């Protein structure tokens, strides 16, 4: 059991996740204390933050004791690809990275652009990233799905949303 979990705990990715938890907890604790030190404000945040920081420190200690290595992350990638029976072509990690980026751009598109166009572009590009090569079919599917979803949204919401067509 322990042997199996070692690559996870001793990878730089795990160290980065712990760093995110620690920085976010410290920032939140600092902001809470800055706002007010009254008992009502810190009754939960202070003790919980301290426990989280101690546990993260313990995880970091374990990670550094085993010396974090890039091989740890590579082992996870390899195992995931074996688990999922990944197709040939782009690696699963590359696809995940691209899809994450697309998802972020999609949310930005909803904020600064148009709902229907952003949804269509996300759908179509995500299909291409996923290895779809039937360009016309994927184009039509993305178009129809986007139109249906955004039309339903405009019917449901009591206020207008930014769209090209509705």
């Amino acid at each position, binding site marked *: 059991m322990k042997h199996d*979990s070692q690559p996870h705990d001793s990878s730089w990715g795990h160290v980065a996740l712990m760093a995110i938890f620690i920085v976010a907890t410290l920032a939140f604790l600092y902001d809470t204390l800055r706002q007010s030190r009254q008992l*009502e404000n810190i*009754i*939960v945040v202070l003790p919980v933050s301290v426990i989280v920081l101690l546990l993260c420190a313990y995880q970091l200690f374990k990670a550094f004791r085993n010396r974090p290595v890039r091989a740890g992350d590579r082992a996870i990638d390899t195992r995931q690809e074996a688990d999922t029976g990944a197709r040939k072509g782009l690696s699963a990690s590359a696809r995940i990275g691209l899809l994450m980026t697309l998802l972020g751009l999609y*949310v930005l598109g909803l904020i600064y652009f148009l709902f229907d166009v952003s*949804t269509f572009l996300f759908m179509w590009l995500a299909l291409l990233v996923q290895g779809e090569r039937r360009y016309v079919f994927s184009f039509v599917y993305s178009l129809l799905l986007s139109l249906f979803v955004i039309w339903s949204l405009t019917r449901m919401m009591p206020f207008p949303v930014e769209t090209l067509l509705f």
Partner: protein
Amino acid sequence: MIDTIALGAAVDLLLGSWQPWLVVIPGILIGLIFGAIPGLSIPVAMAVFLPLTVYLDFMPAILFLTAIFTGGGFGAGIPSILMNIPGSASSVATAFDGYPMAQRGEHSLALGLALTASSVANAFGYVLLMLFVNSMADAVLKLGPMEMFLVAAWGLTLIAALGSQEFSKGLIAGLAGVLISAIGMSTSGDIRGTMGVVYLLDGVPVVPALIGLFAASELFRLIGQDYLVKNASQRRISVKDILAGVKLTFKYPGIVFRGSFIGVLIGMIPGVGASVANLVSYSSVKRHSKHPEAFGKGEPAGVIAAESANSSSEGGSMAILLALGLPGGAATAVMLGAFAMHNVTGGSRFMSENLDIVYAIILGNFVQVVLLFVIGLGFVFIASSIVRAPLNYLIPTVFVMAIIGAFTLTGNMAGPITVFVFSLLGWLMRRYEYPVAAMVIGLLLGKMAEGELIRSHQISGGDPAFLLSRPIALVILLLLVLSTVMSLLKRRKRTHAHA
């Protein structure tokens, strides 16, 4: 316990006109569809269709909304089983065993189990409501902030029961969830951790966060795979397997009963409801099982425990709505809106003066349960076809549904942004074996625990002896300590056995 004259009047009320029944089937279908799409939830469905109820009489209006409630309660379990994406917080625990069953080609069986457990437990909840509606309401009135805090704390100890390999990782995830739930305006009026973002003043929206944590960690993991079920021969949709699931549920009467009972009890507590009931029931059944190691790997009892609790909690929340006029959650709050639109105020006076209507609502729900079972059989058959959908199409489609669904929930960009941020976090957590379910529990219960703790502190003046004057709180505390210690001891024993 039952006023037979009022019961007779209720039967007359229901059978005197066809109008109340006309809205039940559409209501169940709406509930199933909204529940099954991650991001769209029962309260959203009820809110969207609430204006329609203005044109209906009171009885059909309430039957329509309770039909949505009933359909949605089960509908939310469908994506949990098929895609490991809970349709709402009430079906988080359904995914623990439902999804592993689906992965090994037992999706039809799991859906049959969930549908039957939901239907039976829903009926059970309403039986209890019919028998004990007044005493249930009295019991809830005895719960003060101290008891509510302990209930929330008990819920948080469920983190210990979740199947993370390492207890410390589960604790980090759960407590980080508690901290995230504290973002926004505190009970004392201080604004914490918003980084100046206006959207965060009301806190992090929980359902979009839940969708991000669960959906992304699963969808990103599935990238590169062709279908949800790897083995082509197991991708068939089988009525026989769905019916086998129906039959199998009745082999676990104790679990259905326990889940239903837990669901009704927790459903009665305002602000807790189905989202906690399914987790408490799951961990309780796992703890008492002779083979707890099978849970999380596709154990049918896990699906039954979760689904029976979340469905029966509807009866509990309706009891409080009818007897006290208090909404236990978002869905009953919308229903309270329908009450107001028809100039009806729930509460003890409504109960005493309109007992026939209360019984009619309960009896109407028995019929809804039967209809849910029949319609649900057809619905799960269609929903199961998702295992035949190629994942390269399914993954972006679900992402679009989740993002747009989150927008409808919050009504602004806070929903989609939350889904995205928690998508990344969920993927990272899952990659390094931190249980995302523990973070969801923290998110769900953190705010409530803090609010109730502050109120307890204010009432008691900080005197710990106050606890001794609260017998219900002492019992809950005892149960909390016992269940946590037992859970930790069992975990330790298992670790030693594996070593």
